[in-house]
């Protein structure tokens, strides 16, 4: 091979690698947060599937699924294992919050009421009102900050859900222990709360949360920011203008910019997300069928 040709080849390869260099994207979630979300998805869907077989035990679906999961006993073990994962996610997140407080905040107060806080505040209320106005055509789309009010709602819904479902679930897991403190009939109450709250969580996540966060028409086919942790800068400007402006003003934007993942990674993520979505929708259909047409 002549030398000139080789040099040409090297030149072209270098050119290709320069042009294929991924764009820089805004980092919205840390690696731990993304891992926690994936763990949450897996454990949540597992909990939902195994739990609902019991709640809707009267449907053919439930019997079939229970059978697929290796019988009820095995389904129960899977449910409890998934619950442990969920508790793990919850505890890890609390630890992460504690570390965040140590790293970036001087006091708990600043963590809770600071600018990046998930705790709803006056601005959220104003934005809610403005959003409703926008919906009915009485105003422009509000300039949302880092966390919108529906994102904050989803976040605390999970807190509430873990508290309610987790505590009742533990009671039902260790009934002999808990009835040392509470009457036996509270187990019946716990059952109702556990299962109905689970129904609420499942139904809400697989419909409202899916729509609000992943499936909004303008983001169709899917917003995968929570998996990659990154979002295009334009999207940040469009979706979270207030945050963008704050970052630009503070001059910290560059700190948050990182290279996007190669397409193979995003494709894998999409496949996973679609699978989760499909399972979620199936569960919703099953719930609707069980509640409306087969309820006893």
């Amino acid at each position, binding site marked *: 091979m002549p030398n000139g040709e080789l040099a040409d080849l090297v030149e072209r390869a270098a050119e290709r690698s320069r042009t294929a260099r991924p764009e820089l994207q805004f980092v919205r979630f840390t690696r731990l947060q993304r891992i926690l979300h994936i763990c949450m998805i897996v454990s949540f869907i597992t909990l939902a599937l195994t739990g609902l077989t019991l709640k809707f035990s009267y449907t053919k679906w439930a*019997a079939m699924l229970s059978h697929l999961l290796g*019988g009820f006993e095995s389904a129960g073990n899977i449910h409890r294992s998934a619950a442990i994962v969920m508790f793990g996610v919850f505890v890890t997140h609390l630890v992460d919050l504690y570390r965040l407080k140590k790293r970036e905040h001087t006091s708990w107060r600043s963590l809770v009421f600071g600018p990046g806080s998930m705790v709803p505040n006056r601005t959220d209320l104003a934005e809610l009102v403005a959003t409703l106005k*926008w919906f009915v055509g009485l105003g422009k789309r509000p300039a949302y900050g880092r966390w919108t009010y529906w994102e904050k709602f989803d976040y605390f819904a999970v807190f509430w859900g873990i508290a309610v479902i987790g505590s009742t679930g533990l009671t039902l897991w260790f009934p002999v222990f808990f009835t040392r403190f509470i009457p036996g*009939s509270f187990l*019946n*109450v716990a*059952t109702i709360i556990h299962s*109905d709250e689970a129904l609420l969580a499942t*139904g809400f996540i697989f419909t*409202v949360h899916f729509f609000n966060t992943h499936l909004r028409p303008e983001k169709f086919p899917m917003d995968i920011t929570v998996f990659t942790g990154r979002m295009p800068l334009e999207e940040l400007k469009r979706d979270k203008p207030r945050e963008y402006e704050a970052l630009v003003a503070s001059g910290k934007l560059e700190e948050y910019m990182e290279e996007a993942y190669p397409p193979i990674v995003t494709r894998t993520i999409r496949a996973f997300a679609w699978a989760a979505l499909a399972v979620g929708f199936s569960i919703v259909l099953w719930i609707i069928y069980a509640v409306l047409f087969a309820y006893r």
Partner: protein
Amino acid sequence: MAETNIARSKWRAGLGAIIATLLAAVFSLVSWERPVRAADQPGAECLACHGDKSTTTTRAGKTVSLYVDGKKFATSVHASFGCTGCHADLEGKDFPHPTPARVQCGTCHTAEQEQYTRSLHGKAIARGDALAPRCVNCHGNHDIYPVKDSRSAVAPLKVPFVCGQCHQEGTPVSRNRTIAQDNILENYSESIHGEALLKKGLAVAPNCATCHTAHSILPHTDPASSINRRNIAATCTKCHSQIEIVHRKIIRGELWEKQANVLPSCPDCHQPHKIRNVFYDLGMANADCMRCHADEKLHRARDGKSMYVSVGEVSHSRHNKIACSQCHSEVNASHVRPCETITRGVDCTSCHDEIGKLYVTSIHGQLNGKNDPNAPTCKECHGTHGILGKQDPQSSTFAVNVPGLCARCHREGQKAAVRYTGMQHEIIANYTESIHGTLLKNGLTVTATCTSCHTAHHILPRSDPASSVNANNVPTMCGQCHHGIEEQFENSIHAKRVSGYSKPLPVCNDCHTAHSIHRTDENSFRLNVMTTCGRCHEQIAATYFETYHGKVSRLGYTKAAKCYDCHGAHDVLAVTDPRSHLSRTNVAATCGKCHAGATRRFAGYLTHATHHDPRKYPFLFYTFWGMTTLLLVTFVVGGVHTLLWLPRAFQMRQELRAAEAEDAAKPETPASKNKENTDA
């Protein structure tokens, strides 16, 4: 030494015999002499009064004749003894003498007296039975003659009537005493023995005493009795000495005598008192039958049915000691074809009488009575010449073969199954799969087969109160084997005696089914039992399925508590009963079977709760509706929010698409692109 002893004892025996003979001769001479001397006037003194027919006395308010016929007495065997020979207590007494004591015949007739004392009659007297006969009742008093003398009260021709005084219908004895035989005198007089004795005057024909003895009359159960099973052959062979030759098939001489107990004894075939010469057909022996019936080609002219009888088959059968003519009665040996006189088929009840009576009342027998062609008779189940006992593994009625036997008609599609209108179907298939069927297949012959529950000969439909499988009889029937369980069941709330409930209560088969009984630790049973209990306990079963145990059970989890795990199975009792597994004292232990460490408070879990009943379970009801409200509100708010958003979101999408299209049309620097987007 030994030799001298033997020689000495021989010598002694010889001397004893000589002395005895001499003494006997002297004694007989003396006794021969005495009547000659005393015959002149036996008891003349006494007859002065007692020879007068008007001599009477009053005993217990009744006038009793004291007349003694002097002439008869003078000719009687006791004439030589005079009156005081028997009425010894009047010896030397002058008139008026006291009432004499009862004459003791045994003073002279010691041997007879001994026999009599041991006999049925003697024991009755000893008990004070007023109806029991004494010597005088059979033999008379002053007119006793030798037995051979036709004037004797116990002359052979008279014996049946002497005994018949008591042993015939209508007498106080026959009415008041338990005697297994009936119509004794009547039957006897019609029997071959009675006919010979009474009608033909054949004095050697047996009378009552020939078989029963005169003085040693004992019940046939007494081993010493002449009519005991072990002794009857000896009794009969006193006359029928070579009877084995006639009974060459039925009895083998040597066995008959040595082991009478293993063979049928005479009365087994020849019923006592009814012995006939017609029924057993002049000794028609099998060999005579087999002259023709051993031919394999032999067939009936009428319909071509094979009339071949396999000797091998018969000789291995249960009836190999029964003669052909015992079953095929009505043969007549005087015919060239002895069987041509047969008019009826084989009637097994001539021997198997009890079973015959049961069969007639059974559904099979009832149908047979109506000439139903489908009705099974004895031979359909038991076979004919090759009949075997039910203990024989080759027998069609051997436990392992019974289901197959019944299946011939009761298998689905067969004649009995086709006409059956009840609820039980595929009974044979179900039975074969059942626990009983499986055990039977594995060779456990004591397990239940068809006949264990339905009986062999008294099969009746379930609706019949006399049926073994009638609801009222089922617990007892199953309890034959499952005794402990029956005991528990009879003390449970499901027993009428305990609950006092008038409606029909469940019995074994209501929960365990009739033919598809499975082990209760099998999954199918554990998963179906709630539906089973739920047939009656509808409400409680429905609410069970609303709680944890019920839900997981429905998903096929066999370990979760089923009805009987808590309530008990056969010993189920009202929860208010202190003995119940769920009473205040027992409930924690019951829960503890699965939930180790369960307490009374743990047992407060409502296993049959529903959140649909605000009256009974208000807190569950309100919790449920509270949660439902929360759910609905959340979904409505979330839903409305999303729906309102949707049009705006689409609008945004369109704007984005438009901007992208614009970008594509005039590619620019990323900075200007960003700027445009922000403006939009």
